[in-house]
């Protein structure tokens, strides 16, 4: 990907960069003495967990730090110019024109009140590249080049008329509008489905290569960085802990943190956490037969009511003590299925047979009793716990609602549950905001286990966690299953995680199950075209030693 240039001076050189934020708790250093070099035309990935300072580093280059942040030491040299010494007015000429930016969230980074095309041609006007009709023509050409069909028509449309992937393409078009020498892409595809992610990244690669633009790719996804970058920079707690050519870093990581990160990231080559075993002879704990969910939708202000089919004829069973994965992209109906299993959403038709009894339509005391046996853990560790209650209150609540035990017995049970999820029982007095994301998710699991359920529905339960924490929670889930004989329904968009955690996998698309099987067979030999597409879209990273051997069953 490296474009040969006569000028061997690096395009971007950051040395000893330190960025501090002033907060109510005093100054906090988000970046500490970071060094980074980007040569012309190459792609450098900055990898790190949340809070590692990778996004702060990217904002510092652009001079777009939050008002309470400031560079306290170090230099940023871009193409021979010291960016930190540049007055704001001249910095404006650099931003957008010579350094492009592709932000993370395609939903909030386009102005919903301005047609998409005008938002692009505005960039040409600001930088005096073109005006009027010329700007319009160039914007349409650009829309076409990022693969948006019928760009002349799309030019006049508003952001809400574009899908997430299309919006991200528009943002790429905006970032590349002035053919910048450097493009900063801050988690450009984190909000997108994996198949869309692949298309968008391929496009980004193609355009930056043809323009000779260097890319600084900020991402939490090591495999994605490995697949797309020439060199990788690993950040941890504000410092650069490792940096080097991608293949070298992956094959022979020098830093301990990089090694842990590599070990924790599940890939299609990681060993399964659960043993395949033989299917148990006992009857499945849950059997879903022909489940359907329709939502009424209205098309237009006076349009007819129509039925939108969210889940269409879904059937599967959950063997006792096993994990059943449901994989799909957004809109596939996997979360709606979870809600119906939890009796939080009525099904339109079909049966959910729980322990030989159809539970659809349960109400009153029967439903109350059912709730003890099936419990959820949700995705967002920041939203799943009521911030007004302590950890102890949160875990105790199910016991109170079901009137289990005296207050003293409940206290003992809370301590036991916290210990079970490897949390210090002393944390019972803490509030959620005092905990890390992983600790919160452990609390959510402890709460789900309070009623001794037989089935736990895990709806994207590890998706919002950093990779090291995710690995710990996955281990915990496997351990709990082994000890308590739990059955899991694991709903996720992440095939690599599903592959190592599940005994049986169902792939959903547009409300239907398109393919089912054990992870070993399904992922090695996918039959359905969509499954193949999903698998091909996963960033696999550079080859690792263990991938040379045959994948373990």
């Amino acid at each position, binding site marked *: 990907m490296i474009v040969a240039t006569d000028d061997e001076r690096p395009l971007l050189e950051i040395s000893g960069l330190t960025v501090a*934020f002033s*907060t*109510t*708790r005093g100054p*906090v*250093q*988000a970046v500490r003495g970071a060094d980074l070099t980007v040569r012309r035309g190459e792609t450098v990935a900055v990898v790190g*967990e*949340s*809070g*590692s*300072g990778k*996004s*702060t580093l990217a904002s510092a280059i652009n001079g777009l730090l*939050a*008002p*309470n942040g400031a560079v306290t030491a170090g230099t940023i040299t871009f193409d021979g110019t010291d960016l930190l010494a540049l007055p704001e007015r001249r910095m404006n000429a650099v931003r957008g024109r010579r350094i492009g930016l592709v932000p993370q969230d395609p939903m909030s980074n386009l102005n919903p009140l301005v047609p998409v095309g005008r938002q692009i041609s505005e960039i040409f006007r600001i930088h005096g590249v073109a005006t009027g009709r010329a700007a319009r023509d160039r914007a349409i050409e650009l829309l076409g080049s990022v693969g948006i069909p019928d760009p002349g028509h799309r030019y006049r449309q508003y952001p809400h008329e574009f899908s997430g992937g299309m919006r991200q393409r528009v943002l790429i078009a905006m970032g590349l509008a002035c053919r910048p020498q450097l493009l900063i892409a801050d988690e450009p595809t984190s909000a997108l489905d994996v198949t869309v992610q692949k298309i968008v990244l391929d496009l980004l690669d193609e355009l930056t290569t043809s323009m000779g633009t260097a890319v600084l790719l900020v991402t939490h996804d090591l495999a994605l960085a490995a697949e797309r970058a020439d060199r990788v920079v690993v950040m941890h*707690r*504000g410092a650069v802990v490792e940096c080097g050519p991608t293949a070298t870093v992956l094959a022979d990581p020098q830093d301990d943190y990089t090694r842990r990160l590599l070990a924790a990231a599940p890939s299609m080559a990681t060993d399964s956490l659960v043993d395949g075993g033989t299917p148990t002879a006992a009857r499945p704990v849950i059997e879903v037969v022909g489940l359907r969910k329709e939502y009424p939708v209205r098309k237009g202000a006076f349009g007819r009511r129509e039925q939108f089919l969210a889940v269409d004829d879904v059937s599967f069973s959950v063997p006792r003590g096993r994990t059943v994965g449901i994989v799909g992209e957004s809109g596939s109906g996997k979360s709606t299925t979870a809600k119906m299993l*939890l009796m*939080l959403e009525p099904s339109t038709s079909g049966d959910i047979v729980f322990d030989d009894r159809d539970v659809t339509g349960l109400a009153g005391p029967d*439903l*109350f009793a059912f*709730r*003890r046996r099936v*419990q*959820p853990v*949700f*995705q*967002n560790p*920041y*939203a*799943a*716990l*009521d911030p*007004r209650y302590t950890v102890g209150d949160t875990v105790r*609540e*199910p016991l109170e*609602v*079901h009137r289990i035990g005296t207050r003293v017995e409940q206290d003992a049970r809370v301590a036991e549950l916290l210990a079970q999820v*490897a*949390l*210090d029982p002393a944390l019972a007095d803490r509030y959620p*905001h005092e*905990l*890390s*994301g*992983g*600790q919160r998710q*452990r609390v*959510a699991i402890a*709460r789900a286990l309070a*009623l001794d359920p037989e089935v736990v529905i895990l709806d994207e339960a590890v998706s919002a966690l*950093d990779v*090291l*924490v995710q690995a*710990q929670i996955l*281990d*915990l889930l496997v*351990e709990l299953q082994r000890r308590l004989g739990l059955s899991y329904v694991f709903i996720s968009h992440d095939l690599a995680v599903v592959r190592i955690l599940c005994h049986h996998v169902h792939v959903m698309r547009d409300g239907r199950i398109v393919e089912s099987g054990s992870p070993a067979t399904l992922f090695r030999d996918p039959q359905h075209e969509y499954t193949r597409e999903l698998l091909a879209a996963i960033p696999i990273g550079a080859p690792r030693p263990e991938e040379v051997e045959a994948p373990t069953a």
Partner: protein
Amino acid sequence: MTLAAAPDAASPTAGPPPPGTEVPLRGRFRRLLTPSILAGAAVVAAWILVIAFAGVLAPYDPYAVAGPRLSPPTGEFLLGTDTLGRDVLSRVLHGARLSLPIALATISIAALVGSVVGAVAGFYGGIVDAVLMRLADITMAFPSILLAMAVAAALGPGLTNSFVAIVVVWWPIYARLIRGQILSIKEREYVTSARAIGMSRLRTLRKHVLPHALTPVLVSATMDLGMIIILVASLSFLGLGALPPSPEWGAMITEGSANFYQWWIAAGPGLAMVTIVLAVNFLGDSLRDVLDVRTRVR
């Protein structure tokens, strides 16, 4: 047991906290001590003392003739005397005992009624929501002073009736406010989680939804207190609230309006009203700054 015993490495405190994190209140209160807040608090504290000790502080009996009629402010009568020779200062001080508690009671009851209606409408939705909210819309379609006058006129004059009239006019503001809050809060995962353990709807509303929705109502009610003080006085001014010889401020201003050149009769209660309304608004603003996440500076 092979559980990973190490608690997850909490990400260091680098960068702003992730969205959804609630910052502890303690840190936010530190930004509170600005001059406008201190001044507001001092004035409000002074008026509370007046309400408590009006009998001691007032130099004369507010209902009895104390000196010559229509005396301008003098050393003896600091704010002058009215048409009957009563001391204006004494009447203003005693009037605080009427105007301020009535305003406070009005706003509290209006906020309470509005919160209950809004919470029920937002949480249960459907037909309940539609009926309650249309009722609120209809009420809000009338100019508030006009509707309050109509209700007060129908009930007959008197402070209690003007209290009822203002509650009738004012509750929809809080009903709408809290309904909007509830609509977004009830989609949060911890509310779903409460349903999944089998908690009843009413208990969920009380424990996990309402407490999060009340902050804006508290802020808004504080900001509205000044307006309510003025509204109570307006009804009295129009002869629909407190009646003479009551020293209610609005009623006093009515008496003053008949004697244009004896400006002190209306100026006394008017100035009193200005100080308390300003002070309350200052406090309301700062309360919003502290409690409202939307105006929180990072």
